[in-house]
């Protein structure tokens, strides 16, 4: 048993020594983008950022209430001196969500095509969601050290499953008769995917994106343990020094971000389903 542990430990150490640099280089573009976004969000004058956020909130939700709530929350965050940390968190959430969509959407699509793939991927997703985050932080840190990229990877491991699951589910739930009709008119696989399956699965896919964002936010504190800047850092400090107020404020800022993201993405998702609202005989 001890030999086995030793074997795994040394084996992985050798692996990370051999390939660590190459893997790090692979993630460089992502790192550049993340750093650029973070710098932009932090360095740009705050009114400009606030206007951009307000516009995005409007485009997403078309609700004045949501826009006002968003602007109000960000003003409060700024007033309590959490602006910089919030922007750093916003940057990593944005990048990790985009990364999760870029990886998760294709996996979900392939999974929906093959029952065998589904039976292989599903348990992996289960592991990703339930294994304590600290456990996979170890190899990630061993491989890439402490910093933004390992943080990003840790967040993605945790936040990826919902988008994969819901893409798979959404496509599988598409009405069989509509698919049959698409076949009967001679659609190619690609046409069926882009004209029928993805559009009809979009509400579910969007619910997946929403969940992914929420889970990424939940990982913010743990990611800060391995060098990710943002709202997690003060929370971590508050825990180790028993600063109740500091922890509470930053915690609430994370909650505010979560609620804002949730409302905006949810109302956007609902708008996608507008065609389903039945208005007989209009």
């Amino acid at each position: 048993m001890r030999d086995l542990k030793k074997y795994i430990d040394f084996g992985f150490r050798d692996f990370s020594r051999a390939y660590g640099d190459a893997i790090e280089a692979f993630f460089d573009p992502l790192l550049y983008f993340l750093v650029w976004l973070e710098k932009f969000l932090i360095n740009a004058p705050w009114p400009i950022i606030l206007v951009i956020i307000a516009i995005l909130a409007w485009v997403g939700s078309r609700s004045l209430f949501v826009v006002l709530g968003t602007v109000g929350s960000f003003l409060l965050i700024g007033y309590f001196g959490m602006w910089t940390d919030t922007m750093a968190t916003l940057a990593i959430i944005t990048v990790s969500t985009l990364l999760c969509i870029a990886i998760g959407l294709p996996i979900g699509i392939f999974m929906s095509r093959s029952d065998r793939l589904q039976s292989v991927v599903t348990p992996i997703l289960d592991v990703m969601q339930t294994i304590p985050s600290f456990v996979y932080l170890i190899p990630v840190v061993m491989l890439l050290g402490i910093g933004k990229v390992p943080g990003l990877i840790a967040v993605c491991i945790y936040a990826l499953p919902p988008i994969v699951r819901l893409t798979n589910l959404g496509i599988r739930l598409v009405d069989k008769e509509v698919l049959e009709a698409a076949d009967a008119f001679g659609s190619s696989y690609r046409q069926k995917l882009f004209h029928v399956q993805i559009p009809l699965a979009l509400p579910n896919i969007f619910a997946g994106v929403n969940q992914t964002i929420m889970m990424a936010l939940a990982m913010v504190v743990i990611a800060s343990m391995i060098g990710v800047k943002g709202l997690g850092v003060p929370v971590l400090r508050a825990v180790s020094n028993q600063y109740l107020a500091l922890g509470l404020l930053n915690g609430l800022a994370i909650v505010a971000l979560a609620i804002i993201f949730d409302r905006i993405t949810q109302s956007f998702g609902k708008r996608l389903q507008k065609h389903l609202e039945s208005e007989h005989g209009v």
Partner: protein
Amino acid sequence: MESEIKVAIKNLYKIFGKNPAGMISHVQNGISKKELLEKFDSVLALNDVNIEIPAKGIQVIMGLSGSGKSTLIRHVNRLIEPTSGELIVDGKNVLEMGKTELREFRRRTASMVFQRFALLPHHTILENVSYGLTIQNISKNDAAERSQQWIDKVGLNGYEKHFPSQLSGGMQQRVGLARALATDAEILLMDEAFSALDPLIRTEMQDVLLRLQEELHKTILFITHDLDEALRIGDNIAILRDGLVVQKGTSEEIILNPADKYVTDFIKDINRGRVLRVSAIMDRSKLTKGVEIEKNMIIDDALQIISKSGLSKAIVTEDGKPIGSVEIGRMIEAIARPNDNTDETATYH
């Protein structure tokens, strides 16, 4: 009506199960559907189906649920692969087509209308109707223009920008019909296309179809479980039971000479006076006096004329010339139900 054969279904078998090909020999040796299910856990869906569908006619396939009719129609455009058999369209075996050829066949030669409409809920009516054209990479404007004609023809003018969920069932099926017609395919496959509609709308849709057919002359394969519908629109009818064709023929042939008890039960409740024509029961004896009745008139209408005339016989004409005569008693006999149930009265439809 003599004309070329557009679609020929030859010795078609379809068995669902683990080893369908191995079951064929059992079926050919006369194993029953029930036995096959019990012994081999396989379902016999189609059993040696042979149907020849003439061009430009409406062929109805009729049967109760589970008779295999929806499975059969899906073989024509190969949404379902047969276990064995041939399917010849325009002299070509559809079953030997490669992937690309089959796709072209579905795009240009055979289009389909579905029982539950199967429209794309996220597309407008116009986009739905032009679906078959857009996937052929026809430019958006051309597709819209061609689709618009069909939208007008099925009477949906003004609804182009609506979504399917905003329309009633009857209107949605008009969209389904327009979508199938828009590709200019010569073969129209209609899988219980009007079965999900309520009776009045169903009749209305049958009228729409018949009216369009007068002008378009498509080869239509129409699936239904409703005998009235079958008799109303079918030039030829094939009755399917447990995957087996029990009778093929025109509506009159089926009504006057039902092949077995199953068919007899089927036709028991229909209004024969609305289906049978005078020509089927007239005799050649010439008559000099009396009202004239065209030979293709249905008996219901002929009875009204003859009873108004006060005579018991009428002259049957073809193209205005007398060719024979018919007697009122013979007419009544023909529309009376053939079996000897005592409580039979007129049936209403």
